[in-house]
């Protein structure tokens, strides 16, 4: 295994574990950010520059900040007292079982064995992505645009609704 990959994967997974295990919510979200950046770097290693940078732009620039705001708005800045998990062992067991299942599937998959070890870098030009988005995928693009608008409006409405009645 490539050492750079090992480091990246380790950081990504470790930060993910920390994100799920830490008590303080803000720390959790910061760890999540680290994990997402690690993922973006993994994308870069896989040659998907565009996806990697979009990942950073959207997740670090927007989603992480959004979650931070939500944490602060729900007074989650302090470490919560009391339990942080519900019946952790059974949940962990189920998650472990799921992992075992997927890992087993990966390990036994005949399709993977047929794949090339390290295929040549496929061309990934932003122009091609743009053509694709405005060509074949124009309808999904519109739908996503609509969805984002709806989410925007919905988010505002949900977050505001109770205030009026109070």
């Amino acid at each position: 295994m490539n050492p750079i990959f090992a480091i990246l994967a380790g950081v990504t997974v470790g930060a993910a574990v920390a994100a799920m295990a830490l008590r303080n919510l803000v720390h959790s979200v910061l760890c999540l950010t680290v994990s997402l950046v690690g993922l973006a770097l993994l994308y870069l290693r896989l040659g998907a520059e565009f996806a990697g940078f979009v990942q950073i732009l959207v997740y670090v620039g927007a989603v992480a900040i959004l979650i931070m705001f939500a944490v602060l708005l729900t007074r989650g800045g302090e470490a919560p007292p009391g339990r942080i998990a519900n019946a952790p062992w059974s949940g962990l067991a189920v998650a472990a079982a799921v992992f075992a299942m997927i890992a087993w599937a990966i390990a036994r998959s005949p399709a993977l064995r047929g794949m090339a070890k390290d295929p040549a870098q496929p061309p990934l030009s932003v122009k091609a992505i743009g053509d694709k988005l405005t060509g074949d995928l124009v309808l999904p693009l519109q739908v996503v645009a609509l969805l984002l608008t709806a989410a925007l409006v919905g988010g505002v409405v949900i977050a505001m609704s109770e205030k009026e009645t109070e």
Partner: protein
Amino acid sequence: MDRIVEHLWIIPALPLLAAGIIALLKRPHRKAAAALAIGSLGLAFLVSCVAFAATLHPAAGAGTVRLTHNFAWFDLGESTLRLGWLLDPLTAGMLVMVTFVGSLIFVFSVGYMAHDPNFTRFFGFLSLFAAAMLGLLVANNLLFLFMCWEVVGLASYLLIGFWFQKPEAAAAAKKAFVTTRIGDLGFFLGMVWLYHGTGTLLFYDKGAGCLEQGAIASLVAQTTLGGMAVSTAISLLLFCGAAGKSGQVPLHVWLPDAMEGPTPVSALIHAATMVAAGVFLVARVFPLLGASAAGLPADGHVPHTAALAVVTWIGAITAVFGALVAVAQSDIKRILAYSTVSQLGYMMMGLGVGGPAVGMFHLLAHAFFKALLFLGAGSVIHGCHGEQDIRRMGGLRKAMPATFATYAVGMMALAGFPLVFSGFWSKDEILHAALAWSPSRLPFALGLFGAFLTAFYMIRQMWFVFFAPSAHPAARHGHDTRPDAAAPHDSPPVMTVSLAILAGATVAMSLLATPVWPWFHAYLGGHLDHLHVGWDADGAVLATMALSTVAVALGTGVSWRLYSRSATGTDAVERLVPRLFGALRGRLYVDGFYAATVFRLNRAAATAFDWIDRFVWGSLAGSTAWIATGFSWLGRLLDDAGINPGFDAGCAGTRGTGRLVSLFQNGQTQRYLRLVGGGIVAIVVAVAWTGKK
């Protein structure tokens, strides 16, 4: 010629641009907004005139001028969705009418809305409406037509609810929106079906359009439920939409309520243009309605198909229904609204019995005089400081002479006074066609009765508004609560000029479709070159003319006699037949009927589902827990009996079962998810296991 149709989009684009710019303006920019709206629509009128001129000279042997320009909108998988513009006499005539009447109404609004704080917004909405309406007219694609149709609905919703501070206005807007949506559901289904059946929504596409021979023949050939031809089913569904928009009988309830909007809106939307959209739609898809096994309807010959029969009957019933209800109303705009319902019925009837030319001519004529009447009513209301009850007006003839004169022209046109008023000729044509309709004579009789009623209620209204001695001093001085308000006054020139132009147009229209020189028929039918001045009508025409003249005269005479003799305050008819009058005033209880049936049904259904939720599902869920508890209770009983301490174990087990069962019901998403996760793993393992074997 092709250039014209290629650039037909300019006509709707102009008001749309104006609407967009006005939307950016701020409240104080009143002049800019009005100038933009009127200017853009005036420009659109000019362009429409150019387009109209283009349709006057068909190429030799081509018959009707029918220019199309189609283009791809976007690709949808393998198929391409294409839109297009269509220019034919139907479109051109409507374009000129809408832009002309619309411009006049815009000008009128400048005066009428002068004191409204939301003047700018009003013109923005008006422009949006005009844009959508014009877009609807130039569409060569049912989908684009539908889109514009919906925008028209939206604009009408906005305009009816323009004074949304008034709860009635808000309710009326909602009602109009919801009611027309019911019709639109039919429209939408019909459209989808049409697309399914023909694979295109373009009307005319060099032989491949959905209104052309090939497509219609295939639709006629297929049958659906009960042996009905698919074309008939689609036609009826589309007619649902038209009925909703045009206020035909089961769906007419929104139209009178829509009078809560500002009067120019009533004139624009509910007299001249929007309600005409339904009639226009029926005229547009007439080939589909008229399609029978024999093929497309030929010019001048109207086939008897099931779809057209439905249109005719609905139209006739609406015509009489509207007129009847109008007799008993006392709100000046509401009378006109029911009159509109009635006249729309005539149009539909005309379409059903006489084809597009007949129906459309009544539409155009009606647009002018009804706009005139509404604007006149607006002028009256404006002059009386917001008073709308005709019983509290009276004697306005002297106070507002200009309004009186123009209103009288409109009223005579609507009532169908003979010879120089367009209403006479257009109604007469419908009646004539109805007379010739072979399946039944009843529509003719209904139409005649409607003509009588029309004259009756219009005279009643005229008398109350302009002639009656004013019993209430307050009526002279506007509203009760403002005794010191100025006396009724005539409206400013910006309003009366519009009225005068419309009055002139109303009279001028009458020249276009007399039996002596039936230019309009020739124009729509595409045989202008065969047109000549001369009498070549049969005796039936004369007979119809005579009959309708008699009906009008009768209505006028009866009404005048009843009302001019009666004391003011109460209604003459009310004293004669109070119960009938009450029923009519209550709009024949249709609204009440809906309230009692549809709404109550809806609420009952909601209650029922609530009950089912609460008791059936709730008790099912509850009983699971109950059973579990029952088990544990049983276990405890046994334990209490103390027969055997070994029962302790069984009891605990039972209790555990109960707890386990209740675990599924505790509302903890995470537990549910765990089960889901575990279940997936289990299923995968199971599948893999069995698969290996």
